[in-house]
């Protein structure tokens, strides 16, 4: 009969209403990320897109992989884009991540052709981002757009 003591006590606390007593209570931590494209640098064999990552959630996350494709405004695929090195994002923090797009003759030609009508164009990068969150592997959609100017590619044109 001893075990009835705490049970009667808690039932009395909840006015003999069993349903709220058995209802699990959980408030998940806030999670969220923002990606904004920043500076674009062209090197001999690759285009480096610096992205500012913002973790406005309460949990540390590590961006360890980006598998994406860069598209022109006409939805023409330019090249594959990947993450240069993993980035650890502490809760409520911002950090830069470098995305690299390998350049070859065909990509260079496609990009230079974009500037025949305008001095700058928008490139959209879409794909999947791989994150490590508290020991779990999370795959989420990844999308970022950036402005590519003619002068960003002057080095390429010269080459």
């Amino acid at each position, binding site marked *: 009969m*001893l*075990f*009835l*003591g*705490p*049970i009667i*006590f*808690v039932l009395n606390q*909840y006015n003999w209403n069993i349903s*709220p*007593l*058995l*209802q*699990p*209570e*959980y*408030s*998940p*931590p806030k*999670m969220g990320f923002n990606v904004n494209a920043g500076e674009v640098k062209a090197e001999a064999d690759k285009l480096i897109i610096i992205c500012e990552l913002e973790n406005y959630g309460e*949990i540390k996350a590590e961006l360890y992989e980006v598998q994406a494709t860069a598209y022109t405004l006409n939805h023409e695929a330019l090249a594959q884009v990947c993450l240069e090195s993993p980035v650890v994002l502490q809760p409520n923090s911002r950090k830069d991540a470098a995305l690299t797009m390998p350049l070859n003759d065909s990509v260079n030609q496609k990009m230079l052709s974009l500037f025949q009508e305008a001095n700058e164009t928008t490139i959209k990068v879409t794909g999947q981002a791989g994150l*490590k*969150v*508290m*020991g*779990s*592997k*999370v*795959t*989420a*959609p990844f999308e970022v757009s950036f402005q590519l100017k003619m002068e960003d590619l002057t080095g390429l044109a010269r080459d």
Partner: protein
Amino acid sequence: MQIANILTMGKRINLLGVISASLLLYLSLSNEPWWTLKGGSETECTLIAEISPFMFNIQILGKPLTIPAIPYLNLAAKLVMLLAALTTLTGSLLPTKPWTKPLISLKGLALPIIFIAGTIVALKIAGSQIGIDLPLAGNFAISYTINEVNAEIPAATCITAEYWIACIAGVTSVLAKVLQGKALALSQKVQQPAKQWSVISL
């Protein structure tokens, strides 16, 4: 009968009862889980579930999941086990008294059986909710997709040493009850010739 005599130290103490009571006392005062589930990597856990009849700890992404009734059920189980340990200890220290046999409690055996049965049922229900087979002990992976976000969590469940200690305590309490009966029978056998002698001398 010789073994019974040894295990009762010449009908003075029910040794198995003392062992059982000590184990029950340790279990009810310890806050160690009987069954655990850990999801994530070795260093970081997305999901932790540590459960025993006396404690309940579930954390998802570092935040606790609580059920208001659980701490009171844990307290009820703790009180029952403490009482069972104390009555078993009292009975074991007086093995020749006929009124002490019911004091040797078998609740120590019932609890691990109820616990494991409850855990299996809870895993079946939880598994059917998330669409995977959750093993009682072993490795598996939880994967789910919400709004194009896919998460994969390597996880492992295990029955801890505390559970096996509880099983040993339970089995020992059954043996202690049997031993208590034998000790009583032995003491009554000794008393009967003594009574006969006293009648003859009168």
